[in-house]
């Protein structure tokens, strides 16, 4: 079982590295969207600092959302998704492997580039750590919950907008707590509560979301 997990993870990572140009796209998108805000609103440092947590978090959210497509789309189109479902390994483990690969390829780079964006948006240096930590705990949830949505819409033609419609409301708690943690940290206060909440939601999503995703994949495959 563990072997299947590692094999699938390694396969997805290998496939992604063969298409290196696609790998950077969500990351570039993330940086691009954040840098639109100073241009659209104001380069005023105070205002930007106040908006920073929200802007960075919303951009991260959209960036993950746009990259969700590659979680199952290709596998669905070339039939390897059906092969995965036929394999004797529990589908939940395989789903977890695919989501882990997705997070390593999109979520983790966002976490790593976040301090740079914090610099862009005048986030105080001491809050940058919290920004990274909140993204570190939050982005896996985005991938996990997003996987449910993708597996429901992967067979729908032009499912992109539909996917955002059904997934974004589910992302709201993460957005609230993630952005708020950074906000509170900028004021130099303790963020223990927010971080603990993000951790709790992560634990809950790891245990429940793959189950829902597995059911959703079977529904999609049954047509």
């Amino acid at each position, binding site marked *: 079982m563990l072997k299947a997990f590692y094999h699938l993870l390694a396969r997805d990572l290998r496939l992604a590295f063969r298409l290196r140009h696609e790998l950077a796209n969500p990351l570039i998108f993330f940086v691009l969207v954040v840098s639109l805000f100073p241009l659209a609103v104001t380069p005023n440092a105070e205002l930007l600092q106040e908006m920073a947590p929200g802007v960075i978090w919303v951009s991260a959210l959209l960036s993950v959302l746009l990259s969700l497509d590659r979680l199952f789309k290709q596998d669905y189109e070339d039939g390897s998704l059906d092969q995965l479902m036929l394999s004797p390994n529990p589908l939940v483990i395989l789903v977890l492997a695919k989501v882990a690969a997705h997070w390593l390829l999109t979520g983790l780079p966002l976490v790593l580039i976040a301090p740079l964006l914090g610099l862009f948006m005048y986030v105080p240096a001491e809050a940058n750590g919290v920004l990274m930590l909140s993204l570190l705990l939050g982005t896996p949830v985005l991938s996990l919950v997003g996987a449910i949505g993708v597996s429901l819409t992967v067979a729908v033609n032009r499912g992109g907008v539909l996917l955002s419609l059904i997934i974004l*409301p589910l992302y709201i708690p993460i957005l609230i707590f993630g952005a708020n943690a950074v906000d509170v940290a900028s004021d130099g206060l303790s963020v223990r509560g927010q971080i603990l909440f993000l951790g709790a939601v992560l634990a809950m999503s790891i245990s429940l979301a793959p189950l829902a995703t597995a059911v959703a994949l079977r*529904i999609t495959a049954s047509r």
Partner: protein
Amino acid sequence: MFKRIWGWIQRFSSPKHFYDISGKMIPWFAVSALLLGVYGLYMGLFVAPTDYQQGESYRIIFIHVPAAWMSLFIYMVMAIASAIGLIWQIKLADMVAAASAPIGAWFTFLALVTGSLWGKPMWGAYWVWDARLTSELILLFLYFGYMALQSSIEDQRTADKASGLLAIVGVVNIPIIHYSVEWWNTLHQGATVAKFDKPSMHIDMLIPLLVMAFAAKLFYAAVVLVRARNEVLMRERNRQWVRELVEKI
């Protein structure tokens, strides 16, 4: 024993049986909803005393609160019906879930509109990012997501199962969303929202409110049956009994 109950459930949930029975039930629900609604509105709008703080404008509560209750209640019904449909493969449950979604969305919309109309005299603005209004708005988005998924999958069985799963995921998320929004609200708004703490309601206000809530439930029962009957006819249109029914008309 179990077998007999199961057989009974299957017989009752067969589309044709449901069509016959629900046809007889609809007038009862509709008439009692109408009677209770008229009584509740009369009691609420004319008989109930004026609020000493909010004057007459509080009377919108008799629409607003039942609508808000219904919006959550219908989502619960949808999720439970979807679970029944997914687990026991009862098609009728899926049809009830699908028929409920637009009604729930309308109640949510009604709660939002009456809430913002109420907000104008109370808060001085049509929209305030109040915790409950915000949760209600997110609930509306959840309904939209459900309906969008339901209508974008062509195969009916798959559409039912997929949107049913979404409803269940949504229902797990509703408490999380609700409490995080509430928490967010106490942090950001707090002072700007005029907090009128609720003294225990006057009995003359409470009774019309409960009557209206009950009327809303009956109204929902009547409308969901009408809509579910439509779904039955649509989905079973190639069956013999539907053909006979249509030919008779």
